[in-house]
């Protein structure tokens, strides 16, 4: 319908998550209205991120260079590791300012139905990191979903076998702050009861 370069831009926008054909069209026309000084930095930023950002060789978090900022930070505790599914899971944990340890990003969660087996995740690298002996605790912070729980149980078994000196813990589970009790589902509420603490 449009000139080929515009069609291409619309197609590329439409590939982004949450962007449909109509929104892609709107974004393409917005870009067309921008001056070159406003539009080209976007293209440049995409090029730069694709050329310079890779995975940290230790924890598989996003990194510019061989290691991420967290693995390079000497002030972070190296003897505690928090295991997450995706690099995006590191951000909310960092925002809490509660965690001063390091991370290990698995790259997903076990899901046999989707063909994701242990070999597809960075589990072997985790086991090697922990069995080196310098790690005293591994906090499993995979999502609280069926696949996340299955992954957590797998990690617990793996580390019990390969690195019995390290404690394996799981993030607590319970009610979100500000939530009404009447809307809580049974499993969340049940876990909240199991994890209750003295006041």
């Amino acid at each position, binding site marked *: 319908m449009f000139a080929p370069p515009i069609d291409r831009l619309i197609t590329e926008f439409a590939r982004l998550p949450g962007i449909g054909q109509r929104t892609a069209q709107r974004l393409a026309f917005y870009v067309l209205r921008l001056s070159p000084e406003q539009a080209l930095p976007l293209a440049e930023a995409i090029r730069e991120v694709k050329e310079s950002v890779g995975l940290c060789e230790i924890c598989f978090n996003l990194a510019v260079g061989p290691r991420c900022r967290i693995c390079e930070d000497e002030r972070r505790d190296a003897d505690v590791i928090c295991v997450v599914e995706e690099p995006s899971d590191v951000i909310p944990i960092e925002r809490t300012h509660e965690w001063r340890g390091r991370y290990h990003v698995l790259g997903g969660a076990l899901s046999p139905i989707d063909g994701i087996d242990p070999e597809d995740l960075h589990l072997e690298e985790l086991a090697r990191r922990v069995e080196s002996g310098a790690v005293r605790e591994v906090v499993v912070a995979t999502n609280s979903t069926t696949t996340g729980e299955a992954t957590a149980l797998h990690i617990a078994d793996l580390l019990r076998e390969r690195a019995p000196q390290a404690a394996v813990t799981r993030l607590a589970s319970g009610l979100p702050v500000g939530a009404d009790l009447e809307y809580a589902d049974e499993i969340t509420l*049940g876990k909240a009861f199991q994890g209750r603490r003295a006041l």
Partner: protein
Amino acid sequence: MLRSIRFGEADRVLHLYTEQRGRVGAVAKGVRRVRSRFGGRLEPLFRVALVLHEGRGDLCTVTSAETVHAHPALRERRASLGRATQACEAVLRVFDSAEPNRPAYNLLCRQLALLDARPEAATRAQGLAFRMKLLLAAGFVPELAACSACGDREHLGAFSAAAGGVVCPGCEAGAFALDQEAHGFMVSALGQPLAEAPLASEPALRQTDRAIAETLEYHAHVRLPRLG
């Protein structure tokens, strides 16, 4: 709930198996957010009562969810969780139409409840007994009483998915050896309740697994991973 796939910003696409409408696909909006009203209930292995809005598209939209059975205990045990996931995967692959199949629905509900209540039920033998019953519910149960090619009732020592079940020595071209123990296991698995799945040796279980897998592959064009 058989399967849940991340979709968009905070939504999920759900693969459901229902009592009255067979396989149903639905989208649950915003359920990945921490504050979602029913996100916690829309996880695989939950048995739920849903209110679905049927729009113009293929997927319904979840508007309300109540838990019937959450199976919380099986989520705490790796073996039970693994077997429950395998059961859901089998139903997901074998029953892909909107045609209801109440025996299959009841079978899956019983299997999940059993795995939740009894940790010792999470065995390979029990998983195979479930699959045998699933074959029965799907209409693909192999012939086990007589040679499926000639009808002979003696010397049934092999299995042929193409022939449709056990076969005698005279008809065993293309079949694999099925010993008496495996044959007995398959018959007992069909006849006994899920909770009383028979025991068998590893070789017999391997043969049963192969017989089920080849039957499904040949007749239903479905490839299920073998049970470890």
